[in-house]
């Protein structure tokens, strides 16, 4: 940001004007740490990956000649004698959205410099993420035991299993990496590695985590609800 440039809060400018000022500044285009910008750009690239996965899934769903299984029925569970469609997926979604909340709390406490609370909330987020992956493992096991395979399934179109394992697998991989990432950063926060350089890393981790949650919303809507 150019030296002497009025800050946004003290001297509100029309949005267009400040945008032009940012882009024509020397030194930095965005007033954010390098790591944060890099994470944003990475997430943009990752958005394309997931979009293409989902586009591919929708395309084969159209191209296949067999009937598409009804996801509400496939992902239904019998709990205490009651037939509940999509109940596990609903719980998983709830858990993941909740973890976004705890992550936001962790970022908040990070910027307050409250090391203890930051670590607690990061670990809570990681725990919720791990619970999500655990439920996903349960879901995979159930489907596999019912005969669903990537190359075919008894309920209908083979592409149902292929898309399911590929997309949820890729997303689950993202969540698992996120859990590890959270755990590592939480340990480093607890050790006091960021006392001097600031807690931006918590927010960067948070960006990744919120992204993974957001992607799940799209998978939920386009794969499970459709």
């Amino acid at each position, binding site marked *: 940001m150019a030296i002497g440039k009025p800050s946004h809060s003290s001297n509100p400018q029309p949005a267009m004007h400040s945008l032009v000022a940012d882009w024509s500044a020397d030194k930095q285009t965005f007033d954010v740490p390098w790591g944060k*910008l890099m994470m944003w750009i990475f997430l943009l690239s990752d958005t394309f990956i997931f979009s293409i996965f989902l586009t591919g899934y929708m395309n084969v769903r159209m191209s296949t000649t067999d009937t598409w299984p009804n996801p509400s029925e496939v992902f239904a569970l019998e709990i205490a004698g009651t037939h509940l469609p999509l109940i596990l997926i609903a719980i998983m979604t709830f858990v993941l959205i909740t973890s976004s909340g705890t992550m936001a709390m962790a970022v908040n406490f990070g910027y307050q410099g409250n090391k203890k609370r930051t670590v607690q909330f990061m670990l809570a987020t990681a725990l919720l993420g791990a619970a999500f992956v655990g439920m996903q493992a349960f879901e995979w096991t159930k489907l596999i035991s019912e005969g669903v395979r990537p190359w075919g399934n008894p309920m209908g179109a083979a592409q149902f299993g292929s898309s399911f394992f590929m997309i949820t697998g890729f997303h689950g991989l993202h969540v698992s990496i996120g859990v590890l990432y959270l755990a590592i950063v939480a340990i480093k926060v607890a050790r006091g590695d960021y006392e001097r350089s600031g807690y931006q890393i918590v927010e960067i981790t948070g960006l990744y985590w919120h992204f993974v949650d957001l992607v799940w919303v799209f998978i939920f809507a386009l794969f499970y609800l459709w």
Partner: protein
Amino acid sequence: MPHVAIADQTSELHDPRSFITKYIWSQDHKVIAIQYALTAIGVGLIALVLSAMMRLQLGFPDTFDFITPNAYLQFVTMHGMIMVVYLLTALLLGGFGNYLIPLMIGARDMVFPYLNMLSYWTYLLSVLILLASFFVPGGPTGAGWTLYPPQAILPGTPGVDAGIVLMLVSLAVFIIAFTMGGLNYVTTVLQARTHGMTLMRMPLSLWGIFTATVLGLLAFPALLVSAIMMALDKLIGTSFFMPAIVSLGEQLDYTGGSPILFQHLFWFFGHPEVYIVALPAFGMVSDVLAVHARKNIFGYRMMVWAIVIIGFLSFIVWAHHMYVSGMNPVFGYFFATTTLIIAVPTAIKVYNWVLTLWRGNIHLTVPMLFAIGFIFTFTHGGLTGLFLGNVVVDLPLSDTYFVVAHFHMVMGVSPIMVLFAAIYHWFPLVTGKRLHDGLGKLHFWITFLGTYAIYLPMHYLGFLGVPRRYFALGSTDFIPESAQTLNASITVSAIVVGLAQLIFIFNLIWTLRKAKPCSPNPWGAASLEWQTPNVPPRHGNWGQKLPTVYRWAYDYSVPGITSDFIPQNISEDAVIRDAETSGDVDDHSDKGSHT
């Protein structure tokens, strides 16, 4: 500045001492750039030899026993894939991008040097995986560089066992490597510029590299996903791209997949890939032309916007590669329109290059010769692109040698002309020595005239209807026998051009070993990379203090100034003016200092 890191550091970086940390596990962007460049050129030479093999078969069929039909298809595939991805993308972005970005913006290094180092080693891994496919049973895949399913993974195509899997894995690894590098390049350009270096003062090389990197970050995901899906189809029998199919008399288990989906995904990557290669070339050639014509680039802002607009448009033209694929013809109408629209900013660039030369003080140095050669080859390749962009003209020309000639002119020869221009131009910066002029000119004339001897007749073969990717034509009614004579002549030219590259390699080695050091800025270039305290720049690039930039990169032949160029880091007060004309220079002197 709250975010001080290596690129912003105020003190000089200490040089690594041991050979290993200096040249092998180096985090210095310049060393990484050279590692990238040498690997890319090495693997590119393999691809060059493969193309010579193909030409030998086409020019003199039934002569060479070791070129079997299977081997021919494998040569075609590996030649294409290596040239497009592992040579051009890696050399332009990994090589020149790495070298030029921190120097041109006045930074000490990339923002994340460690990631940058990982990027190179991951790239090397992808190259090794690719080359390993030459040594597995069945050899590399022969599916063509587009890897279209179903044939890419069905028996009958060479390399269907291990070759195709290694190819897909190698591409995935390459994409990971590119992403690590690309994130670095984009973040560095956006965030680590030195004082005074606004985006609109950056040399066009940087605009080209920057935009191409953004394209790569958004286009390679499509290739990654299609590689994953095809690997699943091949390895565990999913049916993403595979319809119900009978292969060698046997009904396979595949059902209900969409081969067209692969083509869409592949070309959603493949078309931006053309511009990932072309945009850095556009940028670098602009700088070479301006320096050697001693004139500012014509229409700098227009050039920047043309690069950005081309980058945007390149994402909505992909299906012009698929007019004959059986997609809905209505799409053809849309994609033909966008394809013709993209010719507008491209034509603006060509006009601006020519107008830069117009009344310039042209020095016909070797880099300049290659740069002017590029304008010719690119114009020719671009014009045939307009033919192929129209559906009705494309239909008869599809899958003929006309297409081969077109894309070799536009994205084979043209970027390579720029690469040579760039190597001859920046070699004194990298090594402190100038490549031999006479050898360079010989290299240029053989390469330039030779490419015309190769590709002009190929257009004609295409009009005759000679199909591409055929091992041998045999006797075909509609192709006259004289086509074979033409093919033989093309082969001879290709071998000559291929051998001429030995002159270049000899020149590199001879210069490195025998030539005397030249002056630090032999071309009199104004852009920042030539203004380092040491040439070649040392680790950390800028000594104790980062430079401050006062002007754009194109202040050549400014009236009233003693020197015929003003480096970017010279302030208005420090400019030495001619004594007698100092009164009226104010009109011109602030030309470059606009934001």
